[in-house]
């Protein structure tokens, strides 16, 4: 492969990731959600052309502008062909709805790829994709495919699922989207207000999927997190979606991401919080998190994102009372929304404030015997006072755990406890 070839391929790959979703969003907003496949076809053809032309002629001066210009022309061509088809060949195929929808723009579809249009279109697309008609998982898959330019393989990798499963899930989700008839061209204030909760929840889950996923592919996991941040950032740039909750969610994502590199070591293993190298924490992201967290508290409402962001904030500090604050935030969080993970995290914070022995009682009350984290937490709490009990719990945890890297951590702990027993 020559040097020139390599560079055009790299640029194309990079542009595909970033621009495919943007261009599709702009076109789709013009055509309507029913014609998303046409929009995707036009963008695909654009990239196909880029591949052919750039291979021979090399990279144009401004590759992005080149792509936009070609996409624009292809859209014009499409409308021209459609008009010919409709006026000269017209038969039983029903394209009337499409033509009626945009009667004055058949010749000049008025597509432009300015920054503002791209941002508006992507925002509209987020709201179209996060449709409660689909399950939360399906919404995330759609968002990754349509908004983030992920391939089916990459989505399957992120979810640790089979390619076929993801493909079917996406197909069903797209059919549902078409049925739901969401008005994407003019995003109404009322639609934004009624759907913002769902949008935030989907972005929150998408981020978590990347952050806590069992997938060992570190790159994909990081991409998932970064894409969730990019889309949430987009929400903060529009006054209608720049709510306190949005800011709280973005703050949470910034704080969590600041630890991304410290959390996963070079071979993809999870590094427990207390052993993380704090020098690897990204201070710039922590600063950004602080900024959005301050914005988030400009009103009086406190959402679960506020509380989680608050917890993540305290984790970035070395304040001696931080665990007091963290426990109180967990108390509030669990009162708003019960989840086993929150209950267990709260018990850990409880141990940090009141000591491991009182926390054992608190943790055992939860009685989540099928949950591996429950057992690994009890193993941790018993470790100093009752090595046998600790080992029993760690073993139970290992039998329930899926992630290999976390299994390794617990096996190491068991070894350590056994050694200590032999010494004493």
């Amino acid at each position, binding site marked *: 492969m020559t040097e020139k070839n390599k560079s055009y391929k790299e640029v194309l790959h990079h542009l595909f990731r970033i621009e495919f979703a943007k261009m599709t969003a702009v076109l789709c907003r013009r055509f309507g959600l029913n014609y998303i496949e046409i929009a995707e076809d036009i963008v695909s053809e654009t990239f196909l052309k880029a591949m052919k032309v750039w291979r021979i002629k090399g990279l144009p001066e401004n590759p992005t502008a080149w792509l936009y210009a070609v996409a624009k022309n292809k859209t014009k061509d499409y409308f021209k062909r459609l008009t010919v088809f409709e006026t000269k060949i017209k038969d039983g195929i029903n394209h009337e709805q499409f033509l009626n929808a945009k009667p004055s723009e058949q010749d000049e579809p008025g597509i432009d790829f300015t920054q503002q249009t791209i941002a508006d279109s992507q925002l509209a697309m987020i709201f179209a994709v996060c449709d409660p008609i689909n399950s939360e998982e399906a919404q995330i898959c759609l968002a990754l495919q349509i908004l983030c330019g992920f391939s089916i393989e990459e989505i399957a990798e992120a979810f640790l699922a089979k390619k076929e499963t993801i493909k079917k899930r996406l197909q069903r989700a797209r059919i549902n989207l078409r049925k739901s008839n969401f008005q994407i061209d003019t995003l109404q204030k009322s639609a934004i207000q009624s759907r913002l909760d769902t949008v935030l929840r989907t972005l929150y889950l998408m981020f978590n999927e990347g952050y806590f996923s069992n997938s060992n592919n570190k790159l994909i996991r990081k991409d998932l997190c970064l894409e969730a941040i990019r889309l949430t950032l987009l929400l903060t740039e529009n006054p209608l979606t720049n709510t306190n909750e949005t800011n709280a969610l973005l703050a949470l994502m910034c704080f969590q991401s600041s630890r991304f590199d410290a959390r996963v070591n070079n071979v993809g293993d999870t590094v427990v919080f207390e052993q993380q190298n704090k020098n690897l924490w990204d201070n710039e992201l922590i600063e950004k998190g602080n900024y959005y967290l301050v914005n988030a508290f400009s009103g009086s409402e406190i959402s679960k994102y506020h509380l989680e962001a608050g917890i993540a904030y305290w984790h970035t500090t070395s304040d001696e009372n931080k665990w007091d604050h963290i426990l109180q935030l967990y108390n*509030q969080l669990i*009162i708003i929304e*019960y989840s086993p993970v929150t209950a267990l995290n709260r*018990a850990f914070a409880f141990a940090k404030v009141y000591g491991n022995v009182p926390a054992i009682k608190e943790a055992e009350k*939860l009685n989540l015997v099928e949950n591996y984290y429950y057992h690994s937490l009890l193993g941790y709490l018993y470790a100093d006072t009752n090595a046998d009990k600790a080992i029993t719990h760690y073993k139970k945890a290992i039998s329930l755990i899926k992630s290999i890297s976390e299994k390794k951590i617990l096996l190491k702990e068991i070894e350590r406890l056994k050694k200590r027993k032999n010494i004493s």
Partner: protein
Amino acid sequence: MKEFVLIFRHNSKANVKPTPEQIKERMDWLGSIAAQNRLADKGKTLSISGAKTVKPGNVITDGPYTEIKEFITGFMIVKTETIEEAVELAKANPIFKIGGNIEVREVMVPYNNN
């Protein structure tokens, strides 16, 4: 699962503002119940100063009954299998340290005619 209302009563006369420590204790207690997934409704805290009692004959007096020493200061709802479990949850509440008490009452389920 049944629901039980916990009714908090207090016998201190004035609106004593709880200390940060007391707030923390209460929140730990409430958080513990929620963490066991036993919280049905976190309920409300009731004001003592902003209170009126309406009696027959259009008689309205300030505050709750002044002749009784106890005021209802709040309520919440837990979900447990038995009233004993609900009582067990109530026992850990810090209200007893300051002379309060808790009434536990099962929520009535509408009679089923079938």
